[in-house]
């Protein structure tokens, strides 16, 4: 009977394609929009992920997320170094400083000041130059997106010239020379990231009494990170998070305090509803048009259970095809957008999420049709 069910389904080409289109649309929206959302949310803590070496981030207890910097006194660094279980602790400056480009334009940059001696907290990968070049006078390293886009200079013919090694910048009236281009993950705010030393960053930053943004901590081997964070908090009164904990803090802030989840949630819900409406309505109409065929099968001895399995099989087939096409289109979309500013991350959990969504739509569509077929009176086959 499976064969008959499949032939019945594919025999009505227009309805078959209509159902698949509805499910493809639903599947596309239910994967593409969340993939952008996940990409965006991942960017919110991408800076934390990029700083891979330290185990623990120490900061002011009022900090809510990675860009919410509440500076500490430099002396806090020594207090943290004094906590038992700390292998090393390094300062990190993170702040927004305006850069003046060679064409006179201004661009706000996210300046990261690394410990002068160790350069801990630097970019994960260098494209040009070396991290050690930061020890040269006035040197800075710029991330590749900043160098290619916002810090690039437009020539008279409108073409954008990327910032290169050897080019000059002016950071808050301080001369800076580009000594390297780093590969980093795009951040949520999409500002250029400029790496320099901690002491140079303090010079460039606007005058403030406190300028230490974070303290990066490495735990001694065999020290439990959760225990060490508790120790640091109890000894210093500061907040301490593991890398994962700080990522969660940042992620949760964006989830709770921005309209992003609601906006994307609405898109996904609309995709589900429109997909369910198109697929459900078309599938129901397909069943109605085939009611006589089901009645013939019923008259000839096919039971309700058999017809139920036929409808579920038909719904499963269109579901699998629609889901596959939707997910495929989302993947193509992600691939096509890989070099643009658009955020896109497609983890396996999204496949499960959209799979469940499409399955629900198919069950709804089949459910409406099943009821009609189950109550079908086979005697209708004798009517013309």
């Amino acid at each position, binding site marked *: *009977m499976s*064969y*008959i069910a499949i*032939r*019945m389904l*594919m*025999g*009505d080409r227009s309805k078959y394609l209509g159902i698949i289109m509805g499910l493809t649309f639903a599947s596309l929206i239910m994967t593409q929009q969340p993939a952008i959302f996940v990409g965006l949310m991942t960017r919110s803590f991408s800076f934390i992920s990029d700083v891979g070496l330290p185990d623990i981030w120490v900061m002011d207890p009022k900090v809510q997320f990675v860009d919410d910097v509440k500076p500490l006194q430099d002396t806090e660094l020594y207090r943290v170094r004094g906590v038992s279980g700390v292998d090393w602790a390094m300062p990190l400056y993170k702040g927004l400083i305006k850069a003046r480009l060679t064409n006179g334009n201004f661009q706000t940059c996210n300046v990261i000041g690394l410990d002068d001696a160790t350069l801990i907290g630097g970019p994960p990968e260098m494209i040009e130059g070396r991290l050690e070049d930061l020890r040269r006078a006035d040197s800075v390293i710029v991330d590749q997106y900043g160098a290619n886009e916002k810090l690039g200079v437009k020539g008279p013919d409108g073409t954008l010239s990327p910032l290169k090694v050897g080019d000059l910048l002016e950071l808050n009236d301080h001369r800076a020379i580009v000594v390297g281009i780093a590969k980093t993950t795009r951040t949520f705010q999409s500002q250029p990231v400029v790496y320099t030393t901690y002491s140079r960053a303090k010079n460039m930053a606007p005058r403030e009494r406190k300028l230490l943004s974070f303290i990066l901590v490495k735990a001694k081997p065999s020290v439990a990170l959760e225990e060490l964070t508790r120790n640091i908090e109890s000894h210093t009164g500061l907040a301490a998070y593991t890398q994962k904990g700080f990522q969660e803090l940042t992620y949760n802030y964006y989830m709770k305090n921005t309209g992003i989840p609601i906006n994307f949630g609405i898109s996904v819900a609309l995709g589900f509803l429109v997909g369910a409406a198109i697929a459900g309505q078309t599938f129901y109409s397909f069943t109605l048009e085939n009611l*006589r*065929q089901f009645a*013939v*099968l019923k*008259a*000839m*001895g*096919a*039971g309700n259970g*058999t017809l139920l399995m036929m409808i579920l099989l038909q719904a499963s087939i269109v579901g699998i095809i629609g889901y596959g096409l939707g997910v495929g289109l989302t993947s193509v979309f992600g691939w096509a957008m890989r070099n643009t500013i658009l955020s896109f991350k497609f983890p396996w959990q999204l496949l499960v999420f959209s799979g469940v969504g499409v399955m629900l739509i198919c069950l709804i569509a089949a459910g409406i049709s099943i009821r009609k077929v189950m109550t079908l009176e*086979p*005697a209708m*086959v*004798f*009517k*013309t």
Partner: protein
Amino acid sequence: MMAVHCRNLTKRYQAGGQEVMALRGVHLDIPVGQLMMLVGPSGCGKTTLISVIAGILDQDEGTCEVYGVDLKSLSDRDKLAFRAKNIGFVFQSYNLLPSLTAQENAAVPLIINGVKRPLALQAAREILDRVGLGQRLTSMPSQLSGGQQQRVAIARSLVHDPRLIVCDEPTSALDHDTGQRVMELLKGVALDAGKALIIVTHDERIFEFADTIAHMDDGNIVKSPSLQPTSTSPY
């Protein structure tokens, strides 16, 4: 032996809030090996009667035995199995599945009975050969003429070797010559040993093929089945 043995069959419907008596104490016997035609005006209860005989509808009162089995006494599951195995159907509008080929359509009853598809298709090929459609196995119903479609329907009604074949107006959509050929085919192929045929029809051109004719009116047999086919009909 009786293929069909009905006594005092009654069936009521609710239509527009009113009760309609579709069958009013019908008595009917169809001996094995006979082709009986059931004739009568529209709305007289012919379709209801064959639906009860085929086990598609349950009567309200009375008994109806098909080859000694009282269908009403069977569970739904057993009734389906009995119908799938013992009854073949030919419908006025053919009711072929439009997305299946002639061969696949003819194989459907065997597939319903759980026969593996290759075997069912082989049997369908043989029966289509017998009804003269061996060259049209892969044709879709839309590519066949009305007569050819009805021949596929006849092949479908016979492929699983049922003991009772129920036909509803099998020739009304066909021209005279095609109707005659379909009836010759039905009578020739269907009435093997141990089988019986009941045909509901208005088409007096085919009365000559009947062994007996039962006249119905207002939910009852008004004229007992006659062994002498009538040559003319008031319907």
